[in-house]
């Protein structure tokens, strides 16, 4: 496959055919991973740097594992150990990384657009691993792969994304991807957590979670960050859980075979009830993590090949 750019900064710039190609390749990596084999030739001699300005365990580990399974040399840099905490700017960091001849740069940052800024200044292919409230493209791809494996397609499915839409990069990337692939997307949450103009993305907005979940094929719960409560956007965790927490009673309104998803890490008893999260007949949360590695292998593979072709 041929990407329009040498970076993966978001879903917004991807064509549906790029998305399908990513998912097909990721599917093959998922099978490879299950077989216990690796393909260490794919990224042999390549350097992958995980540059994380925000704490993350699962995304960083997932990229690390993906890189190692493809044979890359993987280096993890996190903000607490880097010179960024000493006042170095993002662009100074970029210059340093350039000097190290890094091939693939995975970036997470609290500010929307930070990976785009880095991408202008580094020679490496930049992969956005989550920037502020903007995008988290590999999460959307792994969610799509998980759904496609169970439902066979994304087209025509009704997918309810629930909770803090306003501050969620996962929600934005998922909405862009799912709409592009022909799903019907609903967003469900209190008005203070629904971002302005979201209906222009082609989604329907629900403030009553029961209505929003009715006959849905997929229910995605999003992590509610506790600072949203201190900011006064919702009055309390118990109020939020009562009206917007995913529990068995609300889930019963969705289709009988509706899948439950969550990007993790979960706040049990806030946005999701343990009974639902741990129900192996409905919850695919563990599989999302598994698909995460496969999707990231596919992304690293494609970007490395794109870089080679451009060289």
């Amino acid at each position, binding site marked *: 496959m041929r990407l329009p750019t040498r970076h993966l900064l978001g879903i*917004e710039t991807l064509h549906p055919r790029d998305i399908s190609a990513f998912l097909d390749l990721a599917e093959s990596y998922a099978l490879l991973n299950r077989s216990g084999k690796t393909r260490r030739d794919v990224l042999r001699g390549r350097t992958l740097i995980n540059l994380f300005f925000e704490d993350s365990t699962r995304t960083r580990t997932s990229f690390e594992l993906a890189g190692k399974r493809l044979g890359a040399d993987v280096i993890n840099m996190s903000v607490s150990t880097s010179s960024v905490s000493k006042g170095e*700017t*993002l*662009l100074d960091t970029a210059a340093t990384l350039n000097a190290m001849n890094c091939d693939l740069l995975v970036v997470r*940052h609290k*500010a*929307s*657009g*930070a990976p*785009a*800024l880095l991408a202008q200044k580094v020679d490496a292919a930049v992969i956005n691993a989550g*920037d*502020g*409230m*903007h*995008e988290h493209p590999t999460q959307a791809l792994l969610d799509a792969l998980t759904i496609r494996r169970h439902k066979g397609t994304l087209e025509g499915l009704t997918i309810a994304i629930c909770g803090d839409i306003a501050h969620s*990069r996962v929600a*934005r990337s998922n909405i862009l991807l799912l709409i592009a692939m022909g799903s019907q997307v609903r967003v469900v949450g209190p008005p203070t957590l629904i*971002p*302005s*103009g*979201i209906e*222009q*993305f082609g989604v329907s907005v629900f403030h009553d979670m029961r209505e929003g979940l009715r006959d849905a094929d997929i229910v995605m719960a999003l992590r509610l960050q506790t600072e949203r409560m201190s900011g006064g956007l919702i009055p309390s965790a118990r109020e939020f859980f009562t009206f917007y927490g995913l529990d068995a009673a609300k889930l019963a309104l969705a289709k009988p075979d509706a899948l439950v998803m969550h990007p993790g890490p979960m706040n049990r008893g806030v946005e999701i009830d343990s009974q639902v999260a741990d129900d192996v007949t409905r919850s695919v949360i563990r599989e999302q993590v598994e698909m995460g590695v496969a999707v990231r292998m596919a992304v690293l593979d494609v970007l490395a090949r794109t870089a080679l072709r451009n060289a």
Partner: protein
Amino acid sequence: MRDTLIAGARVIDPASGHDAVGDCLIRAGVIADFGGDLGRVDGADVIDGADCILCPGLVDVRASLGEPGFEYRETIASAALAASAGGITTIAVLPDNAPATDDPALVRALAGAGEAGGRITIVPYGAATRGCKGESIAEYGLLRAAGAIAFSDGARAIGPAGLMRRALSYARGFGAMIVQHPEEPSLAAGGAATSGARATLMGLPGIPVCAEAMMVARDITLVELTGGAVHFAHVSTGAALDLIRAAKSRGLAVTCDTAPPYFDLNETAIGDFRTYAKLSPPLRTEDDRRAVVAALADGTIDAVVSDHQPRDADDKRLPFAEAAPGGAGLATLLAITLAQVQSGALPLHTALSLLTDRPATLFGLDTGRIAKGKPADLCLFAPERSWRIEAGKLPGKAQNTPFDGRAVEGVVLGTWKAGVRVFG
């Protein structure tokens, strides 16, 4: 000083409506004569004005110069260079420097720096509140006596209603306007773009568009209460302009200005996280841009200002939400305004009037006219000659133009300050 004769230019004085090809004679710093063919003037330097427009030097009633306190962004000298290259001869300088212009000595120092440089006249704003901190009103009487033209907290809104009431009321006793940055602070806090689909797509914290109209509505109410005078700076939304239009028709002392980004650009300019297009107020939707153009044409807007906010590369090469808002505007003020003439949205006289005599009259400045005996503050430009605005190649220090890459028409060929050619 030798006489200067600008010959054969299209001389436009928007205030009187004079518009004819002819000559203009500068003698001893003032306009000695102008009109048709003035014939040969012995000993005069002759400037060929063929195919050019000669208009009053531009009067820019809103700019930050960076000095004192932020000289790494711009100094008075570098701003003066950019201003004269843009045809500007008078600048009203905002008070939110470090220190803020809240002391008569600082007013005199700023005005004096303009005189010493000789390129531009600097007319300082006084701080509306001490230190521009939004707590207690400044010494309007003493500041006014020192030459402050009006009172403002610059880029910061005068937030509490009680404080604004006191400011309007007290300033009235000295015949001075309060110039407001119309944005309700509690709605704007932390915002980086106008709320809506674009901000949501880019994951940027939004400022609801009504933050402007809400402050305008409140302050109009306070003008009715106090009998004071308010001037709203860089108005950018149709809703606020509707309120101002209605207040004017009721005869209230309410006026406003806008700046080129708000009638030339819309929010799509921030795409790809372009921080040079991060402004305060933020760029708006296309509907609001059109409303600003309509308000320029119907007279609701009293002045077009540069809203020059110099920023250094280090202020701008940051993730969007962390980058400093503000755009450089001195060198591009005339050309971007003329684009509205070229598109047919504004008559030439209206456009030039918004840049010269209307702001001058509003702020009581003795400039902005081509009339016998008036100071020879003049701008000569080639209206059909084109150029490209490029960050990095602008005159002066600040390069943070939101119009980077834009092709425009209208090249300033000469600027005269009190009869002295300061540019061209």
